[in-house]
């Protein structure tokens, strides 16, 4: 379900994202277009990224 929620929030296969900051306890702040998401470290581990 976490994967579906990520996709619903805009983190879909092929999406272009930018790592904008690191938050507390290994969480990450990512930008997709004009939107920003905070994601905890466990959920980040589910996401595969390639440098664009």
């Amino acid at each position, binding site marked *: 379900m976490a994967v579906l929620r990520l996709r619903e929030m805009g983190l879909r296969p092929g999406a272009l994202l930018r790592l904008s900051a690191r*938050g507390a306890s290994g969480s990450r702040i990512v930008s997709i277009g004009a939107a*920003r998401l905070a994601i905890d470290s466990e959920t980040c581990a589910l996401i595969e990224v390639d440098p664009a």
Partner: protein
Amino acid sequence: MKQAVRTASILLVGNPNVGKSTLFNSLTRARQRVVNAPGTTVALASGIWRVNGDDLSLVDLPGTYSLIARSPDEQVAADAVNDPDHDVAVVVLDATALSRSLYLLGQVAAAGRPVVAALTMVDLAQARGLRPDAAALSVALGVPIVEVNGRTGAGSADLSHAVAAALVSPANVRGIEPHKHSATLPDTLACAQHLFDWVEQVTDAAVPAGEPRHTFTDRLDRVLLNPWLGLPAFLAVVWAVFQLTTVVAGPLMDAASRLVDGPVASVVSSMLGVVRAPDWIVSFTVDGVLAGVGTVLSFVPLMAIMFVAVGALEGSGYLARVAVVADRAMRSLGLDGRAMLPLIVGFGCNLPALSATAVLPHARQRLLTGLLVPLTSCTARLAVYLMLAHTFFPSHAGSVVFAMYVGSVALVIGWGLVARRTVLRDVVPEPLIIALPDYQLPHVRSLTVSVWTRVTSFVRKAGTIIVVVVMALWVLQAIPVRGGHELADVPVEDSAYGALAISAAPALSPIGLDDWKIASALVTGIAAKEVVIAALAQSYAIDDEAAGAEATLGEQLRATVEQTSGGHASAAALALMIFTLSYIPCLATLAEQRRLYGMRWTALAAGAQFVGAYAMATAVFQVGRLL
């Protein structure tokens, strides 16, 4: 075709933090009220929206990212959208997160609701250099798109026209076939995938490609979300809220109760004097009815301040950051990081802490947090600890009081873990995936409207109960049961209230406190913990205005406890402090819990708390007297 006989029903649907409530407040102004969604404790704002001379009903649904609901709040939104009784859904699209907003719009259209889209946050998207093309979007979607700004009211008239037109001839969203909602997981995933593809096509047509520009929000987040600075910054914010509910609210609360006790009470009693009302009627009106009204009124500034603080934190965009910063600390209780705020506020006063649970997006989390709030030791209880600690542990008073606070935190964690393993098993830690809105100044007019709506709801629903119980306490204290006193002129011991305390006192003997005066003070403490000491003084018939009253009270209480505890006064005093910490929430907290969560949860939590407090106090006394 709809006839004009029934009020058309319009839903306001959107992601969290897209300015939906600001838009709602701007469209309905003060013509709104808080209602519970059918069969739930999820509160909704429902209002009247005047469109082209007709009154329409407008419902502000809980913000959600998806109609595949993960919480009761999201379920309320999903159920409403799937209900054909609603005529049109106004879907609020966030221009800074169009892809996420369009996914929800696609789901609403697939559910068969006619759609009108309101585009918000256009200025913020423009600041990031990614302003969507509203005209291209409207063409791609095949439904009207109205740019709105709930803060300035811009676009409201256009939105009314679009909704009026949609009521007459509903438009379908291009590329979405309305279909029955399917409950099976593969179907759900296939539908979601189909919508994702559709969203990509639409956004490609309407959103410019390119890198977002860095804005003020990015710079501020560097500090507020920083692994080292984020927590101190959050604690500073909590400290400020704490100060607001204590230092700022205190004088206002005093002023409100002084107004009722002083001028209002004297006007009322002189008016009653003119009509030669009997003394007991004057006493009932002033010490019963007006005292209750005064209690409710004194809470109004406190609640209003808390609602303003919560609204401002939410409207500014900071609250989403709190979820990130305090995520780890609260996750062990299955709660969102934002639950930290109400739990800390509870140490000032439990009542505004219940208001602060509004920061949590999920109903079950609000329930769990709201049931844990009474375990946070409020300042009213501090007054009781201080008096008992100075009386019984004069050389270690500070340490003993500190231990009470440690105990309070332990109780919150302990009861939280118990609740999660028993009655609230569905509260499970969720992965943290949260959208961070741009920082904005809170919108004052919109904030004022929602604070007004919430405070009036408190006064109407919780206030009534408080007044009734304070009146009932007066009646018990006014009825003489022996000694041949006049009605409403009875020493506590000879009143019905005293008789109740005398019969309840033996229940305190396992704690070493079998004394009617202590029992009576504890019963009074249910009304408000602030009055426990005053009630003791009243029972000992000590004039609390007299010099050295507290020392006298301490000596007398010490003598009583020495006797009831069989010489183990310290153990009994410690047990009394622990009992006071959690035996029952105060009346205002109970009334507000009942308003928010219903009678069943309120009674269950209070009952569990009482049994727990009784068991702990008994254990402390029984073990303590052996030492």
